């Protein structure tokens, strides 16, 4: 079966230690996490992890099962890139001296919808939000200008399909009250 980038979205309770519990599931199966983000979600007090892994669909299904088994995980989903709207953000810190003289690179930045965040006599900080390859292109472009620092966020994504966490939580509450 073909390996692919899968984006796993995990809705959880806000609990210390859950990150390591989830990471351990990947570690146990020797799967490398390509990127990971954690933030609050659209539901009050519910966290959302977004983890990108390159594995087969069979593997991702099994890993979803293991993740959902964790007590404080509300629901986990997996998606391919086609099923998502997703972005990454990167910051590039470049040497002002090299940069300020060169109008072509300044034009390039405008064309790619990158943004200059900070300007100082010593360095510029440029921000780019977009797809991985766009961020990589800008990286290649800026590298010759004395790239002093570079950092890229993990993938953040929303799915085209609904992920009805609020109603799942309501179901949980009803089940628990009735049981």
């Amino acid at each position, binding site marked *: 079966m073909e390996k692919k980038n899968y984006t796993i979205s995990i809705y*959880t*309770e806000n609990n*210390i*230690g859950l990150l*390591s*519990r989830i990471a*351990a599931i990947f*570690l*146990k199966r020797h799967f490398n996490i390509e990127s990971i983000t954690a933030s609050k979600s659209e539901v009050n007090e519910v966290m959302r992890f977004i983890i990108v892994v390159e594995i087969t669909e069979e593997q991702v*299904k*099994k890993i979803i*099962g*293991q993740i*959902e*088994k964790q*007590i*404080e*995980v*509300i629901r986990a989903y997996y998606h391919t890139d086609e099923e998502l709207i997703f972005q990454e953000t990167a910051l590039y810190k470049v040497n002002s001296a090299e940069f300020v003289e060169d109008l072509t690179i300044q034009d390039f930045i405008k064309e790619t919808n990158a943004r200059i965040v900070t300007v100082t006599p010593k360095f510029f900080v440029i921000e780019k939000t977009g797809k991985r390859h766009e961020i990589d292109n800008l990286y290649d472009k800026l590298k010759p200008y004395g790239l002093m620092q570079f950092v890229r966020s993990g993938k953040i994504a929303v799915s085209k399909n609904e992920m009805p966490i*609020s109603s799942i*939580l*309501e179901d*949980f*509450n*009803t*089940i*628990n*009250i009735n*049981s």
Partner: protein
Amino acid sequence: MEVKTAKKEKIIKQAPTTVSGAEAVIKCLLEEGIDTIYGYPGGAIMPVYDELYKYQDKLHHVLTRHEQGATHAAQGYARVTGKVGVCIATSGPGATNLVTGIADAQIDSTPMVCITGQVGSHLLGSDAFQETDIVGISTPVTKWNYQVTKAEEIPEVLAKAFYIARSGRPGPVLIDITKDAQFASLEFNYKKCTGIRSYKPFPKVNLSEIERAADLINSAKKPMIVFGQGVILGGAEALLQQVVEKAGIPSAWTILGLSAMATDHPLNVGMVGMHGNYGPNVLTNDCDVLIAIGMRFDDRVTGNLEHYAKQAKVIHFEIDPAEIDKNVKAEVAVLGDVKETLQLLLGFLKSKNHDAWHQKFKDLYKIEYDKIINNELNGKEGKLGMAEVIDEINTSSKGDAIIVSDVGQHQMVACRYAKFNKTRSNVTSGGLGTMGFALPAAIGAKMGMPEREVVAIIGDGGYQMTIQELGTIFQTKVPVKIVVLNNGFLGMVRQWQQMFFDKRYASTELINPDFVAIAKGYFIKAKKVTERSELKDAIKEMMDSPEAYFLEVKVEQEENVFPMIPTGASVSDIRLE
């Protein structure tokens, strides 16, 4: 979000009392109906032990000789009673010594709550004396774990711990409590946990899957059942028997399913897996419908998955959704507690018999009997064999004893030959294969079921891994019967070395001490048997003893366990020699 609280209002309000965190721990255990716990004291858990001193008439604490012993004893207790086993340890080494038992409980789905002391919360992360990150260490091997740093969290967290440990697919939970949280006081008010919003222990049963399963079973020509521990955990033994008898299906068991159905039931066709019986292994690759009930298709059961039951339609009755399609693809997956799903299934099943198909199992048993079993049971020459010892115990127990086995050759022989009439009678370390499990597990089993005979069958290797628990037996006077089958080798490893490593016996020969003298050193009655002629009387003497008894049996050094499915081979390529 609007939540109905009808249930909560029903709970009678108790007047809260101010207690210390340590006392709250004990009160929580009592609220959960716990009467026996296993543990070992130390600095960071001393406040809890101080409270145990006050509550010793209500809560029996068993001091084991090592924290690993405490976990296995708690497991033994849990396995025979179905209740949650509890153990307590201090921080640092005390906590890390629990890890093997926790991992064992996790893979064998045993309900257990472990409580560990932790350094004071102001010292967390400072590499304080006996500080270890036990929450981090135990995360991959616990169903849930949590660190308590405030006394007022204790009742709710422990209520949750017990609920999680016992509900759904059971498992171990570890609660780490900082020393300051044990000393601080709280208003104690206990509410049993009845639900956690992100946790659904019992998946909703889908009736249409049950009907599909019933249709497949009703139209099957060569159906076969393989049942596992899920039947025992769900308390569905009687239902299983009704299903088996109504549909007339030959039924085999996994090592942890053993004793869920009487061993002499006519439709019980023996054990599947690496050292299981010939018939059920071979016919796994001949059946047309394979009905898996409360089992998880461990690699020791399936052999090579590429050649496992490929011709069969698989029906999987399972409580844990993560087990569905994990190793073997199910044609029909029936999620739910087997107690619920088998009951529903029964209503759809047609009365059938499959005598011709069943005969195939009998024919293959005959081959196995002639080639292996007869020789092992009725060997009249040479050194004693392990099977003869188990058989003699059967004669004496009439199948009513709880058999606790360790790990290795003797374990396979014990499971192959032991007779069981009652459920929850086979206690062994299946998934993890933990040598050293049996002696402490037998202590817990006997304390859990004091009215039943408990016999531990242990190899000379595993015995020495937790031999210090003889001290616990001596101190508590728990009347367990201990049989060490001494072949002077780590027998299973030696067998593999013989078969697959050209007899290069690397570090498998054991030069053993005088086991009888050691037992006697602990004031435990002890005897050693070397001759066949002495066996019967020695077993009888052991079984008749009202006190603990140790029996060493010198057995053939280089006996091999057959049948055997070599690693990587198909179940139907099981070898008889």
